[in-house]
């Protein structure tokens, strides 16, 4: 890879935010170098590239870091303007995408994170919240459109390449959940 156009992604294999960026790079056919971060032992580079949050993913292009997965996605679309486009051309359509991206992040992922790291009453309330969207317990009869969208997505070869094996994910999620429950236990 030529130095000036070098693209590096600092990520973590089980992080869905990291996977978003990997998927986008692959969809666009952009060559990149992947560096796995150990979140228990963050690299000096990560702390330098993302001093505010110290989180993955961070995309480094021409030596300059970009943090926040959705911001990275927009950066990719604006820098590599070839097809396929990640965002629509029309400003109104882009606004709709922006709205739903925010909704997904706030209402679904944040709610899921709470469900995941809590139990009892806190978890009950969080489940109620994402029952509205119904992602976790995607009942095919209750949410046919969402179910079929998820199916179509997971059948795409690029997506299959990027999603980590189920058992591996289950393992790490169990670890994170136990850790979270222990630290919040009185």
């Amino acid at each position, binding site marked *: 890879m030529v130095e000036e156009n070098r693209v590096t992604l600092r990520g973590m294999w089980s992080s869905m935010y990291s996977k978003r960026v990997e998927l986008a790079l692959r969809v666009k056919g952009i060559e990149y170098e992947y560096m796995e971060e150990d979140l228990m032992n963050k690299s000096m580079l990560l702390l330098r590239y993302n*001093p*505010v949050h110290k989180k993955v993913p961070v995309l480094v*292009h021409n030596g*300059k870091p*970009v*943090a*926040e997965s*959705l*911001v*990275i996605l*927009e*950066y990719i679309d*604006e*820098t590599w303007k070839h097809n396929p486009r990640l965002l629509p051309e029309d*400003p*109104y359509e*882009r*606004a709709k995408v*922006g*709205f739903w991206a*925010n*909704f997904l992040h706030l209402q679904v992922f944040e709610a899921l994170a709470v469900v995941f790291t809590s139990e009892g009453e806190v978890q009950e309330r969080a489940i109620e919240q994402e029952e509205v969207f119904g992602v976790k317990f995607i009942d095919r009869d209750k949410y046919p459109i969402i179910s079929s969208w998820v199916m179509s997505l997971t059948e795409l070869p690029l997506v299959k390449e990027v999603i980590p094996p189920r058992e591996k994910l289950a393992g790490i999620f169990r670890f994170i959940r136990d850790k979270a429950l222990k630290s919040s236990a009185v």
Partner: protein
Amino acid sequence: KLLSPSHELIRQSVHQLIAASENGNSEALWGAWPSPFSYRVIWALKLKGIPFEYIEEDLFNKSPQLLQYNPVYQKIPVLVHGGRPICESMVILEYLDEKWPQQPLLPSDPYERAEARFWVKFAEDKVSCSGMIYQTEGEKLEKARRDALEMLTILEEHGLNGKKKFFGGDNINIVDIAFGWIAHWMGVIEEITGVKLIEGNKFPLLKAWMHNFKEVSFISENLPNREKMAAFFRARRSMILSSA
């Protein structure tokens, strides 16, 4: 609620307005005077010289139009252009920047745009700090205060460090607008709760930025009255704390 003649007139003009915006002739902004999110859109419209009609929404008695235009959240601000609604203040701002490129809110270079969007996201994630302060007391208030201080420290050390007058350089940009609530709303929250955040010699860069921000004409001419705001938030605070 009895409809007085003036109410009827208001209703008629709102209907005309909706009809006009559906013809693609004007912008209509549904807002609420105490809301910093509402003002973000007003500032952007004023900066770009975009004519618009403003409709004050009663947040305790939401209009059917609002529920129709923002069915997901039922919140302001909502911008309606050509009959099509756009929700979420920062989404509206990016939309305005794309349709009216004069007085740009975002830089043109993709890397600088990414930097700006990073700070916009930070502003969005942290704006609830202010909200949490006036809505809580005791331990929860203490936590909210710590969160707010952490946010301000990051802004001072990483956001404003090395910047000129504004996040946008010599002129206000989307990041300045996103943080506008700090310049005017936060002082009111500090006053009504007695929780001091920006005091003494702390946050010199932030203090300078707040001062510069409020000096800009299209900002200073478009700010809600401070006393009115204090009264409003004080009342809201009592209501929330007494029903908790």
